[in-house]
C-alpha cells in the first residue's frame, strides 16, 4: 500500500485512513456551511435596513403572523421579522437582550416589568404615539399612568386582565350552595362545605412562578386596605396578616388543597376541570378552557372582606428598546398594532383600549364578571423592581404558614419587613 501523509520520527510516513479522510472532509464541509450561513444572514440583515424584528409570545404568534402582511402592505419598504417567545422565557430573554444591547425592535412583554427596564434606561419613550388616533382616555383607567415614569411613557399596553372567582356550579349545587361567595367568610364557609372526598374547596398556585401566589396575596391585601403607590405595595400589618391567613391558613386547615405546594396555575386548572377543585381565583383563560371542554363553570367577582374584593390588573404591552436600530419603523408597527381592531384580534383576555372591547368575544356570560372586576374593582399591579425582587421571599413566608411552621401574624410581620 502506498504511503501517504507526513513523515514519522523513524522516517516512515504517517498514513491517514480513508475513513478519517472522509470524516475530516465532512467536518470541514459542515464548518464551511455554518460559516457561510452566518455570513449570508449577517450580510442579509445589513442589506434590509427596514426589517423590524418583533418578539411575539407563542399565544399571539399565529394572529400576529396574520396581521403582519397587512402592515407590510400598508407600509411598503418595512419588513417584519417575527420571532416567537414563550411566557416562561420572555422575561429572561428580554433582560439579557436589553443588558447586552443586542435587541429586537419591538417586544411584547409583561407590563409588570416595564419599570425595571425603564429605570435602567433601556427603553425608548413612546409617549408621542398617544394622541388623536390613540387617546390615553381610551385606555383602561390608570393604565397609561402606571407605565409613565418621570414624565415619559415607556409602553403601549394591548392586553389587560384581572383574576376573578371561577367555580363549579355542579359541585356548588351538590353541596347546597346557591350562589357564589361574596365575602371571605362566605368563601371559607363554602370551601369547607365543598371539601369532601377527592374534592377540595380551593387551591393555590404554590409551585412554579412565585408571582402567581403573591399576586393572589396582594389581591387580598389590597382588598383589605393595602395600597399601591408609585408601583410599590404599601402593605399594612393587618392586611398582610389577613391575606396570609386566607391563603396559608386555608391549606393548613385543609379546606384548600394540601397539594397546593405541587400545583401551578395549570395544575389547578386541570384539577378544576376534573371536578376536584371546586373554586379558585383564576384568569379568563381558564374559563375559556373549561367552556371549550364542556366542563361546568361559572364566574363571579373576587370575594373581599365585606363585599367584592379588589384585583390587580396585569397585562402585556409593546416595548421599543432604546438600542433598536429601527426606531421609526418600530413606532409605525406599534401604532398599527394598537389600533382597536388589531388589539381586539390579538387579545385573548381583555383589550387595553375601551373602544376595542365591543368585540363579541369579550361579552360572553362567563366574561361578564371579569369585565366588572376590571372596570370597577381593580388597580394596576405593582411594577417596582424592589417588590419584584422580594416576591420569592414573600412566597416562601406564605408557604411557611401553609406548612404550619409559623403564624400568620409572624409571617405578616416578616413580609412587612421585606416590603419595607
Amino acid at each position, binding site marked *: 500500500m502506498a504511503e501517504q501523509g507526513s513523515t514519522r*520520527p523513524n522516517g516512515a510516513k504517517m498514513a491517514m485512513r480513508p475513513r478519517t479522510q472522509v470524516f475530516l472532509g465532512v467536518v470541514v464541509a459542515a464548518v464551511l456551511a455554518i460559516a457561510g450561513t452566518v455570513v449570508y444572514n449577517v450580510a442579509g440583515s445589513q442589506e434590509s435596513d427596514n426589517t423590524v424584528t418583533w418578539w411575539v409570545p407563542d399565544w399571539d404568534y399565529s394572529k400576529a403572523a396574520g396581521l403582519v402582511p397587512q402592515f407590510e402592505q400598508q407600509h411598503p419598504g418595512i419588513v417584519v421579522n417575527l420571532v416567537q417567545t414563550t411566557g416562561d422565557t420572555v422575561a429572561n430573554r428580554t433582560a439579557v437582550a436589553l443588558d447586552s444591547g443586542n435587541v429586537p425592535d419591538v417586544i411584547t412583554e409583561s407590563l409588570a416589568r416595564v419599570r425595571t427596564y425603564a429605570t435602567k434606561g433601556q427603553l425608548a419613550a413612546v409617549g408621542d404615539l398617544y394622541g388623536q388616533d390613540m387617546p390615553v382616555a381610551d385606555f383602561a383607567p390608570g393604565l397609561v399612568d402606571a407605565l409613565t415614569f418621570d414624565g415619559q411613557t415607556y409602553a403601549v399596553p394591548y392586553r389587560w386582565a384581572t383574576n376573578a372567582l371561577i367555580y363549579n356550579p355542579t359541585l356548588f349545587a351538590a353541596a347546597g350552595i346557591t350562589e357564589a361567595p361574596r365575602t371571605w367568610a362566605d368563601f371559607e364557609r363554602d370551601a369547607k362545605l365543598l371539601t369532601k372526598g377527592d374534592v377540595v374547596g380551593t387551591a393555590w398556585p404554590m409551585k412554579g412562578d412565585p408571582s402567581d401566589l403573591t399576586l393572589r396575596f396582594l389581591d387580598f391585601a389590597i382588598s383589605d386596605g393595602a395600597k399601591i403607590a408609585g408601583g410599590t405595595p404599601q402593605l399594612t400589618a393587618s392586611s398582610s396578616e389577613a391575606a396570609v391567613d386566607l391563603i396559608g391558613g386555608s391549606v393548613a386547615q385543609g379546606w384548600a388543597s394540601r397539594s397546593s405546594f*405541587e400545583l401551578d396555575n395549570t395544575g389547578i386548572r386541570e384539577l378544576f376541570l376534573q371536578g376536584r377543585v371546586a373554586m379558585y381565583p383564576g384568569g379568563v383563560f381558564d374559563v375559556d378552557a373549561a367552556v371549550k371542554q364542556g366542563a361546568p363553570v361559572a364566574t363571579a367577582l373576587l370575594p373581599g372582606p365585606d363585599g367584592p374584593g379588589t384585583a390587580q390588573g396585569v397585562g402585556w404591552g409593546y416595548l421599543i428598546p432604546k438600542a433598536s436600530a429601527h426606531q421609526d419603523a418600530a413606532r409605525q408597527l406599534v401604532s398599527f398594532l394598537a389600533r382597536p381592531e388589531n388589539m381586539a384580534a390579538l387579545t385573548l383576555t381583555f383589550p387595553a383600549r375601551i373602544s376595542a372591547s365591543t368585540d363579541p368575544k369579550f361579552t360572553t356570560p362567563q366574561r361578564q364578571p371579569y369585565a366588572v372586576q376590571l372596570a370597577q374593582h381593580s388597580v394596576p399591579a405593582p411594577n417596582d423592581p424592589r417588590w419584584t425582587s422580594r416576591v420569592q421571599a414573600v412566597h416562601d413566608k406564605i408557604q411557611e404558614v401553609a406548612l404550619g411552621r409559623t403564624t400568620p401574624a409572624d409571617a405578616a410581620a416578616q413580609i412587612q419587613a421585606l416590603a419595607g
Partner: protein
Amino acid sequence: MTTLTAPPPVRDRQRRARPVVLILPAAILTAILMVIPIVATIVRVVASGGTGLTELFSLPNVGRVFLNTAGWTAGSVVGAIVIGYAGALVLQSARLRFAGLWRGLLMIPWIIPGVVGATVWRWTLSTDYGILNQALLDLGLIGEPVRWLSNPDVVLWAVALIQIWVTAPFVMLMVSAALTSIPAERFEAARLDGAGGLAILRHIILPAIRTTTGICVLTLAIWALNSFTIIWVATSGGPAGASTILPVLLYQAFQNGDQVLVSSVALVQVIIGGVLAVLFARTMRTDLEEQT
C-alpha cells in the same frame, strides 16, 4: 567527568513542539470559554465591593440552602454509587440472561433529557395523580398518600431519588467496564480459598476498582452541585425553600435581575467545583499511573 551535550537538532525541536501546536487551538478555545466567564464573575463580585457576598450570606435561608446542597449532593452520590454498583454486579453475573438487553434498558434514564425524566417523576410522585402513591395504597403499605413533593421533611430525598435514577446508569457503566479488567483467576483463587460473595466484593472487587469509584464519586458530586433541571421541574425549590440548592438560588436571583447575587452564588459554586475538579484531576492521574 564533563560531558558536552550538543544542542538538539532542529528536527527534534520541531517534533517536540508539534503536540503543543496541535493542542494550542483547543487550549485557547477552552481558555476563552472557561477563563473569561470565571474572570467576569470574579470581577463583578469584586467590583460590587463584596456586597453580593454580604447579601448572599445575609439571606435568611442561606444556611438551609447550603445544608440542602450538602444533603442533596451526599444523598444523590451515595444512592447512585450503591445502585450503580449493584446494577453492574448483577449485569456481570454469568447467570443473567440477555445481559445486553438489560444493560441497554438500564441506560435509558441516563440517555433521556433531564427535563423529561424530571417531568415523569413529578407526575409519578404527585399527591393527586402519582402512581407511586396509588401503588403503595393498593399494596396496603401506606394508609394515605405520601406528600413526596410537598412535605418539607421528605422533598429533598424525593428529588435526590430522581437524580439517583438519572445518574446510577453512569456508575453502572463505569463499574461494569472496570470489572472486566479484573482477571478471572483472582475470583477462582478466592473461591478455592473459600471466600464468599461479600468477601470477594470487599477484598477483591472494591480494591481493584478503587480509582473508578473515586472518579465516579467526584463526577457525581460535580453533577449534583451543578444540577438544576430536576429540582426546578419537580418542586421549583419548594415547599418554602425545602429543596432549594445553590443553582436554584442562583436562578431565582437571575429571575429577580439581581446580577450581583447571581455572580456571588456562581463564585461560591466555582470555588466548590474547583476543589472537586482538582481532586478529580488527581484521581485521574492516579488512574493513568496505575494503568501504565
